[in-house]
């Protein structure tokens, strides 16, 4: 799998994403500067990493979404390319109009960094296929603006089209309020685009992709991507 990670000024999980992708794919992920107008040729996946692009000034992701490279990312998504946005990357995908809804300030009004328990709500995507029957996983979050919200019609569509990829749940897999780190509506932690090939999520799978760090549940996401490309 050929992958690239977009680097915005203020991105700070770009290296972590490159490490996780390179480890899963056995091939070094490229780093692409936000001022570039084009993506490298022959890419299978573009990842927008976590961090504080442009300092999260104005609105998280709003300035990054207007970077020159984002036109190329939108075209790439349009053509059916795989796009993964994590944390600030999710915020950027929403600001760029590649995913619906909005990410609001956490209900606690505080930054939150901790492990969360997630339910894999659909395995019908190239990102989640490898989870199979493994429905409840542990992946950390680290954000200040991660409360997903959307209007009723959008939420209905997301549910009807099975596009909610992850929900915050308790150990039994129930989407209870205590399991929700940010006040996201319906405990939504990640959603898919209409063609199921764009995923935005607040939790950081790249931080849970190395057993030495206490968990590797996130690694399955990257393995899913590799597997789906091999079978494609």
């Amino acid at each position: 799998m050929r992958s690239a990670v977009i680097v915005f000024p203020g991105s700070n999980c770009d290296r972590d994403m490159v490490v996780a992708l390179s480890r899963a794919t056995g091939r070094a992920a490229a780093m692409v500067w936000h001022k570039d107008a084009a993506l490298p040729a022959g890419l299978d996946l573009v990842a927008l990493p976590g961090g504080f692009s442009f300092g999260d000034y104005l609105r998280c992701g709003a300035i990054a979404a207007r970077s020159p490279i984002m036109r190329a990312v939108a075209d790439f998504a349009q053509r059916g390319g795989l796009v993964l946005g994590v944390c600030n990357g999710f915020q950027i995908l929403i600001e760029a109009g590649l995913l619906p809804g909005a990410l609001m300030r956490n209900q606690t009004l505080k930054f939150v960094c901790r492990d969360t328990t997630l339910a894999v709500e659909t395995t019908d995507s190239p990102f989640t296929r490898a989870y199979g029957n493994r429905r409840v996983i542990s992946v950390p979050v680290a954000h200040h603006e991660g409360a997903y919200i959307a209007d009723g019609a959008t939420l209905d569509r997301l549910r009807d089209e099975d596009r909610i990829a992850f929900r915050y749940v308790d150990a039994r897999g129930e989407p209870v309020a205590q399991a929700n780190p940010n006040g996201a509506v319906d405990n939504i932690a990640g959603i898919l685009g209409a063609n199921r090939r764009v995923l935005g999520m607040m939790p950081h799978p790249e931080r849970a992709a190395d057993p030495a760090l206490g968990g590797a549940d996130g690694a399955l996401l990257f393995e899913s991507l590799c597997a789906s490309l091999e079978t494609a």
Partner: protein
Amino acid sequence: MTIEPDVTQALAAAHGLKPDEYQRILELIGRAPSFTELGIFSAMWNEHCSYKSSKKWLRTLPTTGPQVIQGPGENAGVVDIGDGQAVVFKMESHNHPSYIEPYQGAATGVGGILRDVFTMGARPIAALNALSFGDPAHPRTRALVAGVVAGIGGYGNCFGVPTVGGEVRFHPAYNGNCLVNAFAAGLADADRIFYSAASGVGMPVVYLGAKTGRDGVGGATMASAEFSDDAHEKRPTVQVGDPFTEKRLLEACLELMDSGAVISIQDMGAAGLTCSAVEMGDKGGLGIELDLDAVPCREQAMTAYEMMLSESQERMLMVLRPEREAAARAIFDKWDLDFAVVGHTIAEDRFLVRHGGAVKADLPLKALSGTAPEYDRPWVETPPPAPLGAVPETDPAEALLRLMGAPNFCSRAWVWEQYDHMVMADTVVRPGADAAVVRVHGTAKALAFTADVTPRYCKANPYQGGRQAVAEAYRNLSATGAKPLACTDNLNFGNPERPEIMGQFVRCVRGIGAACAALGMPVVSGNVSLYNETSGEAILPTPTIGAVGLLTSLDQLIPMAPGAGETLVLLGETHGHLGQSALLWELHARAEGDAPPVDLAAERRAGELVRRLRAEDLITAAHDLSDGGLAVAAAEMALAAGTGVALEADPALPAAAWFFGEDQGRYLVACA
């Protein structure tokens, strides 16, 4: 043009210069200084920048060892970790600003220490902080805690360094002066360390980073005075942080260093342009001329005085190889940062500052730092504390519950969940354990970090308290399996002009020195914060020790959580020392008795034993004993494991002494 005030002794006094110090200036330059020159002297000669009260004693600390690449005197200390790699670290206080404006004060404290580390060519890989606040019931405390924690998180999270540990304490002695001690460590190639000494005549002095504004003018002078009731009026002297700019500055500086263009580099911290320019010249034995018309300014009509004293954040000064100037400029353009040639190195011993076609300062450069006043302040021994009275026997289980629920012992998750402690994806042991452990990226090695001090001990017996702070740091590192390498000291005290405060300082430093020598943990960097007093009330003496240990392989790591059904073994000698104990203070509001004595040889043996037990695969978990003794340590291990624990009493000792005594040099280890 603004009319500059005439310089008088009264104006000098308003700049924090004592009459004899002003006299010294007149003798040095043979005339009255200009307004800008007065500002420069006040910046260079204040306590914060000159260490004039502490230097004599800091010289007594052990600072060398085979592992030390750079000791104190540079932006941060540098220690060899093998394989051509080095860890670069320092701890620094931002106490006064944080009390006045908690969010920005704490945020810029983090920003400053990160800059100290990457100025040396290291990428920051871990941040810690040691925080001391007043009584939780004091009306200011809640706002200070919330603001400081949010400020630390706001800066570190955006910058992208994991904040992996530290300590938070509450004591009424900090009601009028909170302490914010920020530690940062970075990773560099041992043969690619950058220093501040300029070299070569006629080399361009380049200004990099954010623009200069009026924020922080006089900040270092403010931080060198005690507070009265009008502390809040000093709010405009606190700088405002911009972590986004700092992140770009980090990336641009590391790129520039890679390009080979950098001769020397110095960050603009306290006293901004003044301190950084003088330091580069002084260390390199050169003069510096500056043209302030070239300085990128954020505000209009800034005077030379304001530019020289501004503490605007996220700025660097470099001396560059002239032939690489264009390449260097391109890197800064890429990161949308300012880049301006603001002066040159000169052969004469001269600090020449021009602005608007006029000479604003013309001073002998060496004398600015070299002849800064140095005091041998009078000091007295700390009187022995009140003797330990009878300690009431309480049910140990109930006492433990009360202790674990006290603000000084309860879970700190509320604090560290606001810090991104996992960014960079190398955090092996997260906050809440003995020491945080961060993997050296791309290797199987790891570094352990801790920050420790027990101010109650230092107040009762400064010498033992100083020793204990180092010993506890040594123990915390050892409990993770790491071999302690070196430390940084952040010495927080009251007004040194009071002999009893100076006595605390002298004896704490002596204790730290003795322990560092005995434990093989030299002091490679540090910071002194004095005048932590409000209306004559000083803080507890708080010499925070930040320490770094090395795990040459993650296989050596010792977890804190034992498995269910395992046996806990207590290593070390228990005599049941209850003087100055947490039990006495938290449950009975009594600070009595002597601080626990530290047997440094036993401390070293115990640490080496723990590492050996791990190497021989004889233990599954370890935790050090400190505040709260055996009962608290066992409870913390059980909490980490999610298990219960059954402890046996020792018939030879009263229950309180056995379970809550704070004898030093002890560990709990778990055996399967």
